């Protein structure tokens, strides 16, 4: 099926099998490998992206469902090589170790801060509930988000 999506400002048109998950379309067809496949069961959140501004797990959507959508992935956060304040804060707070969950964490935290620029610690924790990290114990991630909250 013909699918046209705009990812981080660039429009891509491709012929896609209906059974292909959106995460595999991004990684394998568009070579946008920033979003990760962690669990493939909808639990870990490493594949989290924004579709028309809404945070979703891209392993639980078909690529064909994204036809016409505006998609944002971790590759689109920084501009001209400049990290966003949130990305810089992850760096400064050592909010990652292996980095596997980081793309999803960044997209979930980005969605939170757009919706609620001054989240409480409890709101940060709830917003990141769908993202699993097995290295950091989460505290540095919460600190990194808190530091850029207004």
């Amino acid at each position, binding site marked *: 099926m013909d699918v046209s999506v705009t990812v981080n400002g660039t429009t891509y048109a491709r012929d896609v*099998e209906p*059974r292909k998950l959106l995460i595999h379309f991004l990684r394998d067809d568009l070579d946008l490998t920033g979003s990760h496949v962690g669990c493939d069961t909808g639990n870990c959140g490493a594949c989290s992206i924004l579709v028309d501004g809404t945070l*979703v797990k891209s392993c639980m959507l*078909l690529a064909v469902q994204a036809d016409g959508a505006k998609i944002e992935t971790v590759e689109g956060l920084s501009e001209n090589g400049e990290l966003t304040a949130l990305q810089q804060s992850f760096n400064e707070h050592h909010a990652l170790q292996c980095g596997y969950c980081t793309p999803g964490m960044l997209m979930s935290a980005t969605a939170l801060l757009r919706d609620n620029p001054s989240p409480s610690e409890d709101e940060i924790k709830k917003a990141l509930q769908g993202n699993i990290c097995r290295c950091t114990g989460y505290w540095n991630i919460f600190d990194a988000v808190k530091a850029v909250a207004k």
Partner: protein
Amino acid sequence: MLLREVEYAKPGSVAEALELLAANDGARALAGGQTLINVMKARAASPDMLVDLNGLAELRGIELAGDGTLTIGAMTTYTELMRSAEAKARPILGEVCATIADVQVRNRGTIGGNVCSNDPTNHLPPLMVAVGATMTVLGAGGERDVAAEDFFLGVYMTAVGPGELLTRIAIPAGKKDGFAAVTLGAEGTCICNAAATVNGSVRVALGCVDAVPVVIHADSPEGVADAVRAAAIDPPSDVHASADYRLHLAAVLATRAAKEAAAR
């Protein structure tokens, strides 16, 4: 993960969706997909065709009538229910939706998908029964209203037949509701849940203890635990909980939900 080959259709109207479902034996409605896509990965379900209901505005939206009745489109997401000013007319709805999975799942998952999948561990089937919801089912033969108590027929089975769709859910006005659940992790798989409504007497719907929600009546929250024990429930044992433990939880959670409802 690679799914089995599947056809995909995106109908432009509910009428077209019904035609597609009726004309294709192996067709299945795709709502939020937060259950269906995953069971397709595991090949526990292998539909030949997915009829995507996303994009059908007729199935979305929340309306509040003058008498306080809420009418909720089947494709309304949990997040929409949590944020809706109208849905505050029955606060328990948004409160329970806020305990389902996580932000990402709540952004896609729908009230209609939750009740139509009728997984016995879902939160919304017992809640719909407790609040006395009415489900509207549409098919080639026309539209019919089904009381929530009669809607859930068995594990993964509802009154929505082949070639039919749940289009909307009507929920009467009310505030004296409560909900309690024990889950694996804060928002994980449910071991037992209970939804209660107080309207003179107490009415509790228990989830995870049978194929369909079990309704318990009592005069007061204090009498709920005995009513649960007297109801001859025979819950399943599984890797998460024994039958005895589930039965114990049923009495505890039913009482908790009833007390919360009575205190409002």
